[in-house]
């Protein structure tokens, strides 16, 4: 227990004892450690490319580790607002959400779309209040994000971008915002009803605010209605996993592959699933629509994309994209089918709530907002890549398109102007839609936003609601 010394007692010192701080200070992990300064100095000189003199032969090649981040980050003046660093992060999100669904699958490897005539417009992506990109909940997001980021040369210039516009409208307007009523569905009744639909036995129980039916240890089917902003439903049945027989027979050995993927699949390489084929293509889409209806949602509120040939006919995948007012919102779900039904499912359940009409700025003002630190600029990515270019970009490192072996950078000339690239972007088209963003209280909203594009099709997005209808109060 803390024995607080009363303040004002003469002779005790002016400040009251702060045991917490004293213990913290005493807990310095580097106490007693030593630094080999000679070795450090030698290494630093070598890496700096300075003549090490009598020491080892200098290796003039600059280290690549950390250089990318280091070069840019330190170039930022100290008072630069936070947003400019997030631009390339926003790039990643746009690649996932926009365009034709799976970045890899967009180029005709058999992807079947569930819509026939008018496909919904792509989603618009914004940063949320913490600066992180609001990506669609898709486990393949990571890979696709990296690819687009590597390919888009524009990210290299970070925030040093000057935006102008040509021909955009200077008329203000209005837009509808939407909220998600997760609170109305995250409860035991919903979990119980859905468990019946999907055939998960048991009663719902509360775990960390979420409602769970079935086993939580992977031994049986599980259904969870999560206490998150979208009221996410997740369901899986391990017994119907086509690879289930592989897991059963595999010895529990630690994975020897790289840990970066984070998965610990024990399935040996030779084990392939067998069994009847799952419905694919249009049949899968039709089944997905049925599942959505059975769950009590509106099948027409989603676009469906069945993934093309995965090489495993026993399982097929359908991605669902939420559509509002003819535009994808960025909210997505997915279903895995096996021959006799659903093996796994992820779907946000929260019904949309009409938050009413908000006044929005004109497209011209939206362009100005890109340079406003309160809004920043999200985007800067080239439109989604197709086919072989995408595959090549996936293996490319974000150093430069022609780099093969590292070479010593050239020595600058005295008096020459210092290269300070600033990207010039002229925006020529605008689209008003909504973007999924999360608020400081954890809820998610679809907020009216502009997507602005240059002549090459690179897009940037910014929130469109007028200043008067935004609450700029800082958090924390």
């Amino acid at each position, binding site marked *: *227990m*803390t024995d607080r010394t009363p303040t004002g007692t003469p002779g005790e010192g002016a400040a009251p004892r*702060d*045991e*917490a*701080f004293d*213990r*913290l*200070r*005493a*807990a*310095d*992990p*580097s106490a007693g450690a*030593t*630094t*080999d*300064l*000679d*070795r*450090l*100095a030698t*290494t*630093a*000189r070598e*890496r*700096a*490319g*300075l*003549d090490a*003199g*009598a020491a080892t032969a200098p290796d003039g090649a*600059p*280290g690549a*580790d*950390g250089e*990318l*981040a*280091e*070069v*840019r*980050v*330190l170039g930022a003046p*100290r008072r630069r607002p*936070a947003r400019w*660093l*997030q631009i*390339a*992060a*926003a*790039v*990643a999100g746009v690649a996932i959400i926009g365009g034709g669904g799976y970045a890899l699958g967009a180029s005709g490897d058999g992807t079947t779309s569930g819509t026939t005539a008018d496909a919904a417009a792509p989603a618009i992506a914004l940063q949320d209040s913490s*600066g992180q990109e609001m990506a669609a909940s898709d486990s393949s997001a990571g890979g696709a994000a990296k690819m687009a*980021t590597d390919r888009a040369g524009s*990210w290299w210039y*970070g925030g040093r971008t000057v935006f102008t516009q040509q021909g955009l409208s200077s008329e203000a307007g209005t837009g509808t915002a939407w909220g998600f009523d997760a609170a109305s569905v995250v409860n035991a009744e919903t979990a119980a009803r859905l468990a019946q639909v999907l055939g998960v036995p048991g009663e719902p129980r509360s775990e960390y605010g979420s409602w769970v039916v079935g086993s939580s240890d992977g031994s049986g089917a599980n259904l969870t209605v999560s206490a998150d902003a979208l009221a996410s439903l997740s369901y899986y049945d391990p017994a119907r996993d086509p690879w289930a027989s592989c897991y059963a027979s595999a010895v529990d050995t630690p994975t020897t592959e790289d840990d970066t993927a984070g998965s610990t699949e024990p399935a040996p390489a030779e084990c392939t699933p067998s069994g009847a084929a799952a419905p694919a293509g249009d049949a899968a889409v039709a089944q997905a629509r049925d599942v959505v209806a059975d769950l009590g949602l509106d099948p027409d509120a989603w676009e469906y994309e069945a993934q093309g040939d995965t090489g495993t006919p026993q399982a097929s995948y359908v991605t669902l994209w939420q559509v509002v007012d003819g535009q994808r919102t960025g909210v997505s779900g997915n279903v895995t089918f096996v021959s006799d039904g659903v093996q796994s499912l992820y779907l946000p359940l929260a019904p949309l709530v009409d938050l009413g009409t908000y006044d929005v700025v004109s497209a011209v003002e939206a362009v100005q907002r890109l340079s406003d630190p309160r809004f920043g600029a999200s985007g800067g990515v080239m439109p989604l890549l197709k086919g072989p270019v995408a595959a090549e970009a996936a293996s490319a*490192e*974000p*150093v430069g398109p022609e780099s093969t072996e590292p070479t010593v950078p050239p020595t600058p000339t005295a008096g020459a102007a210092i290269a300070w690239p600033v990207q010039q972007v002229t925006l020529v088209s605008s689209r008003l839609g909504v973007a999924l963003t999360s608020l400081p209280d954890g809820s998610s909203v679809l907020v009216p936003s502009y997507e602005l594009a240059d002549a090459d099709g690179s897009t940037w997005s910014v929130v469109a609601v007028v200043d008067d209808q935004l609450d700029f109060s800082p958090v*924390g």
Partner: protein
Amino acid sequence: MRPHPAHPDVTDDPGVRPGASAAAVDDVDPTPAAAAAIGSAHDAAWFDALVREHGAAVHRYLLRRLGQAGRDEAEDLAADVLTVAWRRRDDVPDGAELPWLYRTAGFVLANHRRKGRPVPVGDVPEEVDDADPAVLAVADAQVRAALGALAPRDRQVLLLHAWEGLTGAALAEVLGISRGGADAALSRARSRLREVWAALDA
């Protein structure tokens, strides 16, 4: 600030350094400020002095935040920080080198935490969580628990003050905020620490 350790085998050998400037006094490490006073730019002599004067501090900064597992990497990363100081030598403010180095060390550490993959700079968060409590080799379990209960920003401020001994303008420099902001942030962080500590004691 801690006094820098004695280095009996450091000598000023003019033959090693290119450039016209000579070292200052033979029996004292020339500080960067002294080097500047002699009228040299931030050249190799300046760099050598910077490394001698502040290399250990940078190394300790990294050691503290890398935990047991990262002890070997601390020196490697310290060398990286100093390399950056060379490349950005004109940015390093005379008389305030160490806060600049600490700030750089924070970015180098954050990048390293991504397993050294080259990342687009946009992925480097503005808020550097340079002290993951799970990683910290803090023997005192209650301190470790208290640190874990704090927000990353509070943690960052507290450790810079408690371990690196930074206050005032130097602390503000490392955090990249105003002096007033730094004072307020430190006061808040200490207050939060006391709250969390009391809760753990209960």
